[in-house]
Structures are given as C-alpha cells and as structure tokens.
C-alpha cells in the first residue's frame, strides 16, 4: 500500500486523466453532426493514439541521437523500447481508425492520403526492427539502427503533416478542411481531448519504462 503512495506522481496523473477521459468522453455533450453522430467521441480515443505515437517516436529519436553521441547502451535500449511502443500506438490508431471509417466513410480503407501515409510511416518503423534483427554485431546494430531511427522520424513528419495537407483528404485539417474547426472542436470536446492526449501518452510511456527496466536487468544479467 505504501508503494502506491510513494510511486511517481505522473502515474497517478495518468490514472486520473484516463478515468476522466472515459467518463467525460462518454458523458459530456458533444456537437451533433450528421453521419458522425456519437462517433465524434472517438476523438478522445483514436486521435490520442497518433499524438502518443508521435511523442513516443520523438522520445525514441532523441535517445537515438544521444546514443550516437555517447555510445551508451542505455540510450539504445530507451530508443528501441520507445519505438516499440510507438508502433503499438500506431497500430491501435490504424485499427481504431478503420473501425470508425467503416461506419462514417463507408469503408475501412478508402486510400485517403493520410491513411496511406500513416501506413507507410508504420512500415518504415517496422523496417527499423527488421534491420535491427538482421545485424549480428551489437555495436554495429545499435549505430545503424540509431541512424535509421533518425531517418524514419524525419520521413514521418512530411508523410503525416505535409503531404496529406497538399491533396484532398477525408481527414479534418487536410486539403479543403481547415484544421480542427472542421470538427467544430468546441469547448466541450476540448475539455476532454487535451487531457486524453496526455493520459494515453503517459500510459504508453509508463509501459515503456517497465519494458526498459526489464531490458536493463537483462543486460546486467548478460554482463555479469
């Protein structure tokens, strides 16, 4: 019981924010729009997956750069595990998006520019893990995958933020749709959405820290 009180404050923040996300996200009034109906509430569950993915990948690339500068194995472990969780978030984002699209756009995959671009950036990150597992020498593997990580991150930015905006996309904020205004992201949605993003990202980070700790223990075992 004492552990629960002594643990990091942000873990409790995560619990509180996600509880609020589920309660507020399902109960607070939302804009009544045709076709969208209640599915507009998905904003608090589907969109934070992508925000979380980008933040986790950002953490991953920072540690990749750190690894290249210091050669510290710890940074490599951080970088890999953050990328791992980022991919999990991305896959959840794609799956939830397809379910939602099935009932609003009429089909799970409509080759929307943003759908395609997010699938491509996920494939690039999957290639990161293929690359890692294909190199035997540890130091070489860490260095090459860190370089690839930087490449993947800076390829993801135009894929997700620039290219979909240059063509017509069904996603709000792209093509003819101006930013969040298309959602009519009113004050009630804002009341939950930003907290949802922080909450889901914290949950992902929390699980990543556990994976990192396991990896560090494993390394210590191998070194000993």
């Amino acid at each position: 019981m004492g552990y629960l009180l002594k643990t990091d404050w942000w873990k409790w923040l995560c619990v509180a924010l996600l509880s609020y996300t589920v309660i507020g996200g399902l109960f607070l009034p939302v804009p009544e729009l045709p076709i969208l109906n209640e599915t507009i509430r998905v904003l608090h569950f589907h969109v934070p997956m992508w925000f979380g993915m980008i933040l986790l990948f950002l953490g991953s690339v920072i540690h990749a750069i750190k690894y290249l500068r210091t050669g510290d194995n710890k940074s490599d472990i951080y970088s890999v595990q953050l990328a791992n969780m980022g991919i999990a978030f991305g896959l959840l984002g794609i799956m939830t998006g397809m379910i939602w699209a099935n009932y609003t756009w009429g089909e799970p995959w409509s080759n929307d520019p943003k759908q395609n671009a997010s699938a491509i950036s996920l494939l690039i990150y999957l290639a990161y893990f293929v690359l890692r597992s294909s190199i035997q020498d540890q130091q070489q593997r860490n260095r090459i995958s860190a370089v690839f990580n930087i490449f993947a991150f800076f390829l993801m930015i135009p894929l997700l933020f620039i290219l979909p905006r240059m063509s017509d996309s069904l996603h709000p904020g792209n093509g003819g749709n101006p930013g969040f205004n298309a959602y009519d992201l009113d004050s009630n949605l804002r009341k939950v959405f930003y907290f949802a993003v922080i909450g889901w990202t914290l949950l992902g980070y929390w699980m990543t820290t556990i994976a990192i700790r396991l990896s560090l223990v494993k390394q210590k075992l191998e070194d000993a």
Partner: protein
Amino acid sequence: MLKYILGIVMLIGTQFAQAQVEMADDFRGEGKIYVVIAIILVILGGFFFLMFKLDKRAKRLEKEIKEK
C-alpha cells in the same frame, strides 16, 4: 407448496413486466455509440496484449536469474 411458490414468482414477474422500467434504451439507439465502444475495446485489448508480452518477458528473466 411448489404451486404456491411458482404462483408468487409469476405474480412478481408479471408485475415487473408491466412496470415501465427506466433503462438506458437511448444508449442502444441509432447513435453509433457502439462504434465508440468497439474502439475503446480495441484499445483496451491492445494494451492488455502488451501487458501480457511484458509479463512474459519478466517471467523469462526471473527464470534466467533462478538458473544462475
């Protein structure tokens, strides 16, 4: 005896059936809320899957430590 018990049960049953019980009927109405539920379940499932994977890794480590 059984006849009486059954009779009482049936009496209670019919009374419940007659009363307009307040249920979340609108919830099941055509508002596509089930899409939101499906999506929350998918996300929960994803996180459970990751938890099981972490659990497995921890178990493997414990075994390794035991063997040393």
